[in-house]
């Protein structure tokens, strides 16, 4: 794989890898640094890259392993410090988005961050990035069945949490989600 091909096929994955790295590392700056180092690593193994049928899934796997190693090497991450680090709605001029209840969306994100890393990753890869079960299995290094179990737990946990904080359709009511 030469530079032109690398730029065409691999570099465009950087946005996705960056968001994945940020999810795992809970730190914007560190995620950006990591992505650069991951790409340097991918570039150095460019000759083997064409052997992977699913380049995207492979790059995601490299990213996940890299981030998990990095997390292992340092002190425990305090999830709270990241919680509202970037704005969920930076483009508020979209009227459709104005309709969305941002408090509830924030509540979902906040709850997401309390989930185990595997569940967060499974949700990210499936519900946000839209990978197939087999791809997720290969990225996370587990079998498809385990992926389904993890994903199912995460989805149920989010739904139960939303039901608990509740009061759907009555925004005027005292809504515990607002107090978070």
């Amino acid at each position, binding site marked *: 794989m030469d*530079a032109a091909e*690398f*730029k065409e096929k691999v*570099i*465009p994955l*950087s*946005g*996705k890898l*960056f*968001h994945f790295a940020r999810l795992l590392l809970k730190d914007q*700056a*560190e995620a*950006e*640094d990591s*992505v*650069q*180092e991951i*790409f*340097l690593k991918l*570039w150095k193994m460019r000759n083997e890259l064409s052997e992977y049928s699913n380049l995207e899934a492979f790059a995601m796997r490299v990213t996940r392993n890299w981030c998990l190693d990095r997390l292992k090497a340092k002190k425990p991450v305090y999830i709270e410090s990241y919680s509202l680090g*970037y704005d*969920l*709605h*930076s483009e508020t001029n979209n009227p459709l*988005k104005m*309709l*969305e*209840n941002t408090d*509830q*969306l924030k*509540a*979902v*994100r906040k709850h997401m961050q309390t989930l185990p890393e595997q569940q967060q990753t499974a949700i*990210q890869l*499936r*519900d*946000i*990035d*839209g990978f*197939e*079960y087999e791809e997720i299995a290969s990225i996370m290094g587990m079998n498809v069945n385990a*992926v*389904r*179990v993890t*994903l*199912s737990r995460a*989805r*149920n946990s*989010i*739904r139960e949490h*939303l*039901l608990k904080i509740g009061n*759907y*359709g009555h925004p005027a009511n005292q809504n515990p989600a607002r107090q978070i």
Partner: protein
Amino acid sequence: MDTRQIKILLDRYNRAETSLGEEQILREYFSGLSEIPAELEPYRTTFRYFDSMRRSSVQKPELERKLEGLIDREQDGRPVIMLNRKVIRWISVAALAILISTTVLIVNKNRKPDLGTFEDPEMAYQEAQRTLLYISQTLNHSTKELSNISKINSGVENLKNLDKLNSGMDKLKLISKLNETATNENKY
């Protein structure tokens, strides 16, 4: 798609048994503005959250440019130094330390003791002469030590005797002839 079918899909969604296509159907259902049963509201929130995350996870052109630059440099064989934030932090700490220590040094150096000054030009001239004389004396004293360098020549003279070593070596060559005759004799 009616609510009953959606609920069936949601059950399978919760067990993570839905295909990507089926999840797309759910996504479209919840992104619409139509009324939905109250018990499905949590799903609407969840799917909207996923949508908002997907929209924010678009490509990052400035990151891509940075990475392309990185690849170009790496391809040209130029060294790639990862200036990540950790390194930058250390560099700034070091730079600050150097800055502080140089400032302290300069300030200390400028705080010379008061040497006094002469109002009368005649006295100033005499004092300057005295100081210069002192300097030249000390200088002469030091150059005397350097005169010993001439002794090095006599030492080098002695080295000429090394030539004699050569003539001795020539004589030793005769020994090699001895070896030849010895091997010749062995052949017979």
